């Protein structure tokens, strides 16, 4: 009996699958849609997972994220003496020095740790793997802590530091070291960063010994931060928004993919309705038919899902270096530029493919289950848009639109994205109703029999194509939205760079003496020398940087101010006020007139400037005031004004005279190029996603058209018999596809601009901390309009060609079959 049942299943499955064997193109489209959807989803997930794993490695190995930190409040100093006092009092703490090393355009994080006290903090740090970064138990501790010392880094990091002046430090290659980070002893780090006895922070054991005296008795100027709270400067918290951004796009692409799968699967059920009935009439139980249909879908999902995962992997591998560059350029987070295979990721990719197919197939399965065994005249065909269906969709869209302000009220990045999703879905849902209304209007205007038939026939096809058209609309809207965002970003950013990098040269000296000598040498050769000193400080509770700048027209005329109090440059020069960057202003809610706590006393804020590409808070003050407050800050950096045509020669002379490395002199144009590169890479990821999304939508349209072509011969045959040649019918078919695509594209424009507004005014502010003016680009819209026409042409060509070549026999068949 069981063998009989197995044989029966094989037979039925064979009959079901034979449908696809007779229509290989349709099968290919179904699989391709599912595969691309999975690839988009899992590719982005791979990128996200890799970046997260990098943060986790850093946090686990170094305890930076996981352990509580003690940091000085309000810009006060934390020194080795504080560390010693706390240890004496019984506190389980270990000192940390953090900073950045520059080598040419490369920036490497420097992390100073104290290996002995460090190992005592976490039990986990003692067992093998976790302690393998930095000096392990077998390492030569003496060589690590005794100058010139040893530094632990990956081979890639070591390459980035090639040629840097590290005062004789020996670099030990350690594959387990966090990406782009050099780990050295605390003392060595203080030396390399010129910090004297200062420390960045103390990391503390999660549980302190019960007898330890409270913090405010031993070191009242220190505050204990909760690692779970995730301050805005925590790389994971900062970059979370970037990843949420990516995930949202992946989800959007997956939804577009779902629309395809839904349309392909739905039409497949529709086409096979007769076979399913026959199978049941011949004695296959309903449950078996359903189970075998589901099994067929599951196999398709697994095959397409697996292919999608491979494709997603390739996509992620191609995008990863760009993402790594973005994350370090934009957020200062260090991420490995390569990819690792994670089983969880593979499973989630397959899971998404299965879930997506299940969602797409559910409707078909339910209809099959309910289908009466005897076909009572055709039930309303799946491919026909019913007035009731359209009404329901419009109602659903209305509900979503009502939910939109609620999502915005929730606020935050999640609220912003939820509102985005509501808006997009609502737009997609009303699209068929809008197109139907347009066609109804056209029907009343149509003159001539053929035109009338054309409009009516188009209306009838709307149901079968609506999912594909929705997918196309979403893809176009996403393209418009993201394209507008990138365009706005680019124009704002380049304008800002021009203002911000208004000096011709930026020169960094290696020592203070050299700095003085350079300024003396330049005094007669340059138009102006503008020293820029800076110091790290805690700003409104977050680590940031304070700059001291000279009073000069360079700033007065160019600085990218978002808000300014009257006379701000004068008050800045006189040390009566400061400027803050937009990030600090938004995060801490500080505005003009508010006072901000600074080392050496609070000052009022006289202006806010835009500071794209920097994750941290920043303050600008007058150079004199800065000198009083930070007498120890190294005086190494200056901007140089000179006639642009003389800048190159001056840079060469300067390098020659002081034997400066190439990285010490930054040419304005070169700096702009590097900044723009980082920026372009940021959006290469989303641009790639956009192109793929459009491709996915094109495939959806093709699938819909191909499937419809096989269903709708009975509608074409009578028109052909009445004397319209096949070529004419084919041309009309192509024209129909084009008109629908153009109408869909027109509908996508306001939706896409709405999306852009949401991205710029809501999501961007939450994710990056700054708001950009919206810049609608007509060329972009024209380009996308052309893209939608091309997509329609590509999708419509094959079905039209097939129709033009159809044999009279196939058309006659329609009449013969009317039994």
């Amino acid at each position, binding site marked *: *009996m069981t063998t*009989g049942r197995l*044989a*029966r299943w094989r*037979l*039925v499955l*064979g*009959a079901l699958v*034979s*449908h696809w*064997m*007779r229509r290989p193109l349709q099968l290919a489209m179904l699989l391709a849609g599912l595969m691309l959807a999975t690839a988009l989803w899992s590719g982005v997930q791979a990128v996200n997972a890799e970046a997260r794993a990098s943060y986790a490695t850093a946090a686990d190995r170094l305890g930076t994220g996981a352990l509580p930190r003690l940091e000085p409040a309000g810009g006060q100093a934390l020194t080795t003496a504080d560390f010693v006092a706390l240890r004496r009092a019984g506190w389980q703490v270990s000192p940390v020095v953090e900073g950045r090393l520059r080598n040419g355009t490369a920036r490497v994080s420097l992390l100073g740790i104290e290996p002995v006290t460090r190992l005592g903090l976490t039990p986990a740090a003692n067992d093998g793997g976790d302690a393998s970064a930095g000096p392990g138990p077998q390492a030569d501790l003496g060589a690590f802590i005794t100058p010139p010392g040893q530094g632990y880094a990956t081979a890639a990091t070591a390459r980035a530091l090639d040629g840097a002046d590290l005062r004789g430090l020996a670099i030990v290659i350690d594959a387990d070291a966090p990406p782009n980070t050099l780990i050295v002893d605390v003392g060595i780090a203080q030396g390399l960063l010129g910090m004297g006895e200062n420390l960045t922070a103390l990391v503390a054991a999660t549980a302190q010994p019960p007898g330890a005296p409270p913090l405010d008795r031993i070191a009242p100027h220190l505050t204990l931060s909760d690692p779970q709270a995730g301050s805005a400067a925590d790389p994971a918290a900062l970059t979370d928004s970037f990843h949420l951004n990516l995930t949202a796009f992946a989800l959007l692409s997956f939804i577009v993919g779902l629309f395809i799968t839904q349309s392909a699967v739905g039409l497949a059920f529709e086409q096979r309705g*007769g*076979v399913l*009935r*026959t*199978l*049941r*009439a*011949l*004695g*296959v*139980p*309903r*449950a*078996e038919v359903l189970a075998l249909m589901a099994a067929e879908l599951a196999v398709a999902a697994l095959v397409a899902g697996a292919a999608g995962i491979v494709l997603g992997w390739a996509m992620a591998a191609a995008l990863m270096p760009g993402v790594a560059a973005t994350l370090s350029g934009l957020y200062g987070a260090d991420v490995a530029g390569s990819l690792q295979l994670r089983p969880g990721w593979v499973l989630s990719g397959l899971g998404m493919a299965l879930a997506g197919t299940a969602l797409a197939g559910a409707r078909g399965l339910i209809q099959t289950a309910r289908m009466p*065994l*005897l076909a*009572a005249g055709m039930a309303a065909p799946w491919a026909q848009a019913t007035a009731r269906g359209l009404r329901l969709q419009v109602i659903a869209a209305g509900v979503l639109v009502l939910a939109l302000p609620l999502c915005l009220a929730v606020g935050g990045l999640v609220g912003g994205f939820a509102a985005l999703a509501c808006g997009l879905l609502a737009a997609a849902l009303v699209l068929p109703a809008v197109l139907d209304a347009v066609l109804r209007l056209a029907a009343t205007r149509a003159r001539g029999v053929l035109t009338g038939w054309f409009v009516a026939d188009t209306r009838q096809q709307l149901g079968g194509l609506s999912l594909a058209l929705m997918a196309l609309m979403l893809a176009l809207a996403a393209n418009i939205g993201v394209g507008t965002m990138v365009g706005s970003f680019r124009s704002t950013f380049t304008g800002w760079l021009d203002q911000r990098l208004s000096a011709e040269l930026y020169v960094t000296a290696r020592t203070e003496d050299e700095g003085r000598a350079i300024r003396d040498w330049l005094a007669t050769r340059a138009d102006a020398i503008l020293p820029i000193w800076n110091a790290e400080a805690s700003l409104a509770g977050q680590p940031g940087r304070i700059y001291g700048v000279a009073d000069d027209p360079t700033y007065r005329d160019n600085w990218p101010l978002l808000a300014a109090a009257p006379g701000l440059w004068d008050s800045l020069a006189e040390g009566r006020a400061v400027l803050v960057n937009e990030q600090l202003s938004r995060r801490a809610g500080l505005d003009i007139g508010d006072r901000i706590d600074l080392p050496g006393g609070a000052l009022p804020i006289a202006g806010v400037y835009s500071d794209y590409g920097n994750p941290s808070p920043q303050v600008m003050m007058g150079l004199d005031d800065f000198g009083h407050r930070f007498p120890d800050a190294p005086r190494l950096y200056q901007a140089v004004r000179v006639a642009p045509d003389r800048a190159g020669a001056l840079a060469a002379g300067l390098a020659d005279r002081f034997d400066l490395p190439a990285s010490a002199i930054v040419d304005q144009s070169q700096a702009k190029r590097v900044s723009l590169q980082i920026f372009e890479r940021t959006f290469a990821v989303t641009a790639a996603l956009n192109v793929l999304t459009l491709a996915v939508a094109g495939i959806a349209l093709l699938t819909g058209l191909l499937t419809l072509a096989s269903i709708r011969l009975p509608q074409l045959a009578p028109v052909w018999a009445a004397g319209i040649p096949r070529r004419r019918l084919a041309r009309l078919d192509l024209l129909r596809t084009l008109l629908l695509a153009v109408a869909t594209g027109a509908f996508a424009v306001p939706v896409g601009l709405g999306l852009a507004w949401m991205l710029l005014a809501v999501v961007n502010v939450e994710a990056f901390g700054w708001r950009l003016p919206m810049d609608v680009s007509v060329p972009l819209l024209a380009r996308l309009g052309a893209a939608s026409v091309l997509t329609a042409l590509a999708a419509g060509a094959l079905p039209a060609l097939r129709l033009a070549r159809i044999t009279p026999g196939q058309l006659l*068949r329609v009449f*013969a079959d009317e*039994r």
Partner: protein
Amino acid sequence: MNDASPALAEIAHARGIHKTYHTPGGEVPVLRGVDLSVRRGESVAITGESGSGKSTLLHLIGGLDAPDDGALSVLGTDLRAADDTARATLRRNGIGMIFQQFNLIPSLDVRANLGFQARLAGRFDAARAETLARDLGLSALLGRYPEQLSGGQQQRVAIGRALAGNPPLVLADEPTGNLDEATGDAVAQLMLALVRQRGSALVLVTHSARLADLCDRRVHLRAGRLA
């Protein structure tokens, strides 16, 4: 499994069958108390005007639809109590159904269609299929697909499919409707041979008096009842 046990003399038994279709346009009463008994080795012809309910009755006997009222048992299965699986089992193993609309599987070729139900029932016999194909004049068409066949050719494939598994009950809905007289006669002889040689039962719906005369018995459906 429960192939018609040879001891069962009465293969189909219907008493007081009622069937009404419910349509948006109103009720369509079709059968109003049909009584019918078909025995082993017996052939019964049902005649009646178009729209009188012949196909409806055949579908009820074939377990494709359920009567509103009355007693109906086929090959020992009480069709008023049977669930979907039991009905499917009956159709698969006990009944060869020839549909008025053929209902071939369009994506399978003639050979696969011919053997399909016999294979489903686990009773496929290559030699029998071969003979049937020859007798039905389908030998040259085995590699074709239904859409490449004429209406009569399709009808013969449907007949072959129903007979290939030698089912104990054959239900044929106008099996010769699309055939010329000579072919129709040949096909009728094929069905009757099954009845005579294997003791199966045949219920066939037809407008053809010639065909009806070939059967053991003839009943006429009028006003929802058999006479």
